């Protein structure tokens, strides 16, 4: 019997018109950065998930992660492969949701996954730190470029950082999803 979903609401002020964009997310969803369309349809979520697992990008990067973890294992003291792999799946799934044109990943010796994403004229560098084992949500940073111009960066939890990435894509019409705007009840 699945447990009832907790529903989280996130509000982001819109710089353009002073309005508020509202996202609602269920913690039963996996990966945890889904929007209304997936949230409302469990079957659809399962199908989407299956498509992710058959996705060549996902498989390629998952294998790459395993290879790199083995090479850099000595730098990952205190983080076993299963834990690291689970954390990686969380960030990688969320990043693949943004449908990047290019996505690559590299493990770093400071216990993080360094992702590079390209979409349109944007380049995103998201660093997911795997070593915050006492916190509920991992720490991440996001550095963004439009062409060669650097945009303001963001540091926060992985969840918050993913929202900033999604919001940047939405604001620049690079992500087409169904979202709830200025709708306060669900």
């Amino acid at each position, binding site marked *: 019997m699945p447990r009832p979903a907790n529903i989280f609401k996130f509000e982001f002020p819109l710089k353009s018109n002073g309005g508020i964009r509202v996202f609602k997310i269920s913690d039963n969803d996996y990966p945890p950065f889904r929007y209304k369309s997936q949230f409302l349809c469990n079957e659809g979520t399962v199908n989407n998930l299956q498509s992710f697992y058959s996705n060549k990008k996902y498989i390629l990067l998952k294998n790459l992660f395993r290879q790199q973890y083995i090479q850099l294992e000595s730098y990952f003291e205190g983080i076993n492969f299963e834990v690291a792999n689970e954390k990686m799946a969380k960030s990688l799934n969320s990043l693949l949701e943004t449908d990047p044109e290019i996505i690559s990943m*590299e493990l770093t010796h400071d216990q993080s996954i360094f992702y*590079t994403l390209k979409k349109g004229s944007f380049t995103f560098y998201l660093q997911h730190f795997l070593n915050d084992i006492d916190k509920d949500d991992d720490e991440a*940073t996001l*550095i963004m470029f439009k062409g060669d111009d650097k945009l303001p*960066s*963001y540091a926060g939890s992985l969840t918050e950082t993913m929202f900033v990435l999604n919001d940047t894509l939405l604001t620049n019409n690079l992500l087409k999803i169904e979202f709830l705007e200025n709708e306060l009840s669900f």
Partner: protein
Amino acid sequence: MNYPSEILPKINYKFITCDLFNHYLIRFTSSNKKEDLLDSISNQIKQEHICSPREHMNDLSTSLLGVYDILHVQIELTTQGKQKFGQDWIPNEQVTAPQYLSEFIINSGRGFWVILIKKIQGIPVDYTKSNITTPFTAKCVVKHTPMKWNYWHFSIRWELDDGMYWHELQDKERAKLAKRLASEARAIIAKFAEIEEPNYSQLEKEEYCK
């Protein structure tokens, strides 16, 4: 084998303070194979070649490409050489050349990446964080830091908004900033670094001779 004297500091040299925007910095890598250096998907330099684990992103060693050219990256100081020559050079100080094998070797397996200074000099770091109202700001600074083995040594550093440099902070303060600034440095270098030899020019002599 003689040490290349053209990269040694000379008594008539001074600190370089002129505009270097159209010049390149060069940094050695542990491999000279393109497939090792570049990520095959993003076509950008791999993180492992931006900075090795024993070095620090807060004060990244590079050299000014010009008189110091792509072959000079193969010079590797030995432990003894590092002790004797791995120190800051002070103007007017006379230095001797490192001795082959005991103080330096040629590592022909080394490669390099280069970065155009104007792409990174002064580039702002401004972070927002959900629970902090005042954004954190810093900027990238390219600074001439000549060393006894290499007059053309430059450092990529990070100047905070209070005028302090990241690498000068106490351990506790430094640790707080480490993740953000290291991410920033990694991303900026990945974005702009290239592994091909660019078209470059040498600095005019009046810019470094007294």
